[in-house]
C-alpha cells in the first residue's frame, strides 16, 4: 500500500505543481450533471469575480483520493465535495483543515451564516452546499393507483408490483420504520433498540420477494422507466432529471423522504488553502446556492436561498416545488443522523447483509 501510495504521489506531484501556481484552486466533485451545476453556479462566477482560475476534477467518490493524498503528504486538491459521513470521519481522523465559520457571509437580510444554514450543515471541517434526499418515486403509467405515502411503498396488496430499494441498510431501515407508521422524529430512537431493528426487518420481510435492489444512483430512474419496478427509492435529483429533463412518466412521493448533505471540505495540506476558503465562502453564499438549484433539483443548504430559487435551465420549470427542502415536501421528512450511522453502520449492515443472503 505504501509503495502504491508513493507511486501515486509521484504521479500526482506534477499535477500538484501545476495546480499550486498562483491564482488557481482545484475543486474535486462527483461528475456528470452535478459537477455541471457547480461549474455553472460556482466556478464561472468565482473566476469572473476574483480572477482565480478553478480547475474542476471529478472522482467516483472524492473522499477516497483525499485519504490517499493526505497520507502520502502530497495534496493536489484544494476543495472536495464529500458526503456527510465521510466529512465527519475524515475530520475525526485529522485529514481535513478546520474551517473558521466566520468566513461565511451573512444572508442578504443580515441573518448570520450560523443561523442561516440548515441545522447540521456547518461542521468543524465542512460547509454544506446542497441538501439531497432519498425519496420514493413511482412510474405514473405502470402504477395502478398512485401512492400517496411512504406506507404505500410497503403495501403490496393495494399497490401491487415490484419495488426498487437501495442495497444498503442506511435509509432502507428508516424508510421501513416510517412505512410502519413511526413518525420521522422518532425513527432513530426506535432504530436504536433491538426491537426497533427487528421491527424494521419485519416490515422489509413483507416485501422481500418483490424487491429489486439497486446500487448506483442512475439505476432507479432506469428501472422505473423500463417498468421493471413500479416504485423505487431514488435520489430526488435523478428522478427530476428523468421526469423533467427527459420527459419520463415519473413522480415523487415526498412523504418519508430522508434528507442528507453534500459538503465542501479542505484536505489538510491543500496547496491553495486561502483560495480554497475564499471559494467555499463565495460558493455557499445565498445567491450562489440558489443559482446551483436551477441546474439540478438539490436544495440549497441556506434557508435564505430558498426564495431566490428560480427556473430550471429549460427556462420554464419552476424549481422551488421540486426541492427536497420545499415547505410542502418537508411535512414528514427525516434528516439522516450521521452519528447514528457512524456508530451502527458495521452492525446494521452486517445484519442487513445476513438478512439479504438468507
Amino acid at each position, binding site marked *: 500500500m505504501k509503495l502504491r501510495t508513493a507511486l501515486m504521489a509521484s504521479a500526482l506531484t506534477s499535477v500538484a505543481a501545476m495546480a499550486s501556481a498562483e491564482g488557481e484552486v482545484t475543486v474535486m466533485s462527483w461528475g456528470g450533471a452535478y459537477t455541471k451545476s457547480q461549474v455553472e453556479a460556482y466556478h464561472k462566477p468565482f473566476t469572473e469575480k476574483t480572477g482565480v482560475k478553478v480547475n474542476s476534477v471529478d472522482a467516483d467518490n472524492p473522499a477516497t483520493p483525499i485519504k490517499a493524498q493526505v497520507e502520502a503528504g502530497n495534496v493536489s486538491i484544494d476543495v472536495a465535495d464529500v458526503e456527510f459521513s465521510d466529512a465527519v470521519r475524515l475530520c475525526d481522523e*485529522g*485529514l481535513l483543515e478546520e474551517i473558521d465559520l466566520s468566513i461565511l457571509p451573512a444572508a442578504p437580510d443580515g441573518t448570520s451564516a450560523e443561523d442561516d444554514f440548515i441545522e447540521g450543515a456547518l461542521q468543524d471541517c465542512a460547509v454544506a452546499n446542497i441538501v439531497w434526499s432519498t425519496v420514493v418515486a413511482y412510474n405514473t403509467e405502470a402504477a395502478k393507483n398512485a401512492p400517496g405515502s411512504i406506507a404505500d411503498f410497503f403495501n403490496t396488496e393495494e399497490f401491487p408490483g415490484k419495488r426498487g430499494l437501495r442495497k444498503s441498510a442506511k435509509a432502507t431501515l428508516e424508510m421501513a420504520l416510517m412505512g410502519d407508521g413511526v413518525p420521522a422524529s422518532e425513527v432513530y430512537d426506535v432504530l436504536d433498540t433491538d426491537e426497533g431493528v427487528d421491527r424494521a426487518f419485519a416490515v422489509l420481510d413483507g416485501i422481500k420477494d418483490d424487491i429489486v*435492489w439497486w446500487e448506483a444512483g442512475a439505476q432507479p430512474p432506469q428501472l422505473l422507466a423500463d417498468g421493471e419496478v413500479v416504485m423505487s427509492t431514488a435520489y430526488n435529483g435523478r428522478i427530476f432529471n428523468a421526469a423533467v429533463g427527459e420527459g419520463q412518466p415519473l413522480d415523487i412521493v415526498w412523504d418519508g423522504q430522508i434528507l442528507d448533505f453534500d459538503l465542501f471540505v479542505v484536505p489538510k495540506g491543500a496547496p491553495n488553502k486561502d483560495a480554497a476558503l475564499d471559494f467555499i465562502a463565495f460558493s455557499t453564499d445565498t445567491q450562489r446556492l440558489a443559482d446551483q438549484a436551477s441546474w439540478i433539483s438539490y436544495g440549497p443548504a441556506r434557508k435564505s436561498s430558498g426564495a431566490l430559487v428560480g427556473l430550471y435551465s429549460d427556462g420554464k420549470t419552476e424549481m422551488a416545488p421540486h426541492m427536497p427542502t420545499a415547505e410542502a415536501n418537508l411535512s414528514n421528512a427525516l434528516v439522516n443522523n450521521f452519528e447514528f450511522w*457512524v*456508530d451502527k*453502520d458495521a452492525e446494521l*449492515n452486517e445484519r442487513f447483509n*445476513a438478512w*439479504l*443472503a438468507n
Partner: protein
Amino acid sequence: MADTPQSGPAPDVPTRLTTADGKPLKAALAKAQAAARRRAFLLVLPLLAFILITFVVPIGQMLHRSVHNEGFAVHQDIGSGVRTPIMTNLRDWFAANPQGTEPDEVAYEALVKDLVVLRDLKAPGQAGTRINYERSGSRSMFTKAARRAKKIEPPYKEAMLELDEDWADPELWQVMRGAVSPYTSNFYLAAVDRERDAAGDIQRVNENRRVYVTLFVRTLVLSILITAMTFILGYPIAHLLATLPLRYSNLLMILVLLPFWTSLLVRTTSWMVLLQSQGVVNDLLVSIGLLSDDNRLQMMYNRWGTIIAMTHILLPFMVLPLYSVMRPINPSYVRAARSLGATSWTAFRRVYFPQTVPGIGAGALLVFILAVGYYITPALVGGADGQLISNLIAFHMQKSLNWSLAAALAALLLAGILALYWIYDRLIGIDNLKLG
C-alpha cells in the same frame, strides 16, 4: 561382484579434459553457463520485478493486513509521519492483569490518561473505529469521552460510567484487551461468523448476523454448478468446432470468440435486457401466449440471473481449452474402435473422451477459479440471493472500509482455492492440464 562391474569406481580416470587454452573444461563450461544464466535472468528480471511489485507484494500486504491492525496501538501523524504509541497505559494494565479481571479504578485511570493522549493527537476517531469493528456503538463512546477527557476527575470509574454506562461492559474491555496488540486473529474469526465473548472464548455470532459461512458455501456451490453447466454446454460446441471443415469451424469460432472479446459489462447488461421481467424473453413468452402478462418469470435479480449470465460469460474459457485438445485428436482412433466392434458410445467413452480429459481439467479449473472470484456480474444481476463472497469483500473494501476483514475474507478465499488446486493435483494431476 563380477556381475556388477559398474558399481565400483571406474578403474581408469581419463586425463582431465581441457579447453584449447588449457583451462579445465568443467570450469570453462560453468563459466559460460553462468554468463548465459545471468543473461537469462536479466531477461526475465523485468517480469519478475513486475510480478513482485504487482502481485506478490500486494498479496503479502493483504495477508499481513488480515492479522494486523494498529488502529488501537499506534497513531501516525499525517503531516510529519511521526508514529506515537497510543493506549499505552491500558496496555500496561492489561499486561499486569489476567483475562477476566474486573476493571478497577486503576484501569479506568489508565483509560482516561489514554483518552487525553488521544484527544491531543486527534486520534479518538481512529481508536474508536478499531473497537467499533468488533463492538458496535463504541466509536461515539470514544469520540465523546475523549472530548471531555481533560475534565474528568477521580474517581475515574464513576466519572466514566456517568458519561456512558456502557464503559463497564465486559465485552468492551475484552475487545480493548485484544485490540491493544496490533496483531489479532479476530478478523479471521469474524470472517467465519465467530467472535470472542466477554471471557475470551470463541462463540458463534448472533444468528441474525451470520452471513460469511453461508456465502462461502454458496460461492462454492454456484461455482461448481456453473462449471458443470459450461462443461455440458461447451463440450458439444468444442467437438463441433474441432470436427467441422475449417471454413465452417472458423465461422463458428468467431461466434464463440465475439462475445469473448466484448466487454464484460456489455455482456452482463445485455443479459439484463434479455432477462428482466419486461425484457425480450418474457415479452416473447407473453406474446406467444405461454405466459400471462401478470405472471412474468423472474429470471433476474436472483440466483438464476447469476447462474445464467455467468455461465454464458465463462463459456469461452471452457470451450477454448477443450477445442485445443480435441483439434489434434486423430479421427482414425475412433474409426478404428468402431471397426473393431465398439458401439459409438463405447468408442466415445473409451477412446475419444479420455483424450479430452486434459482439456476438461484445464477448462474446469479456469472456469471454477474465475467463478469463485466473480464480482461484477453477481453485483448487477444477482439481486439479494445471487450474491457471492466477493461482493462482500468489495463491500468491506469500498463501503465499510474495514480492510482487515476484507483481507481476512480474501485470504480465506485464496486458501480455499489453493486447497482445491491441491486436491485437483492429487486427483487428476496438474501435468494433465492442457491450456492449448
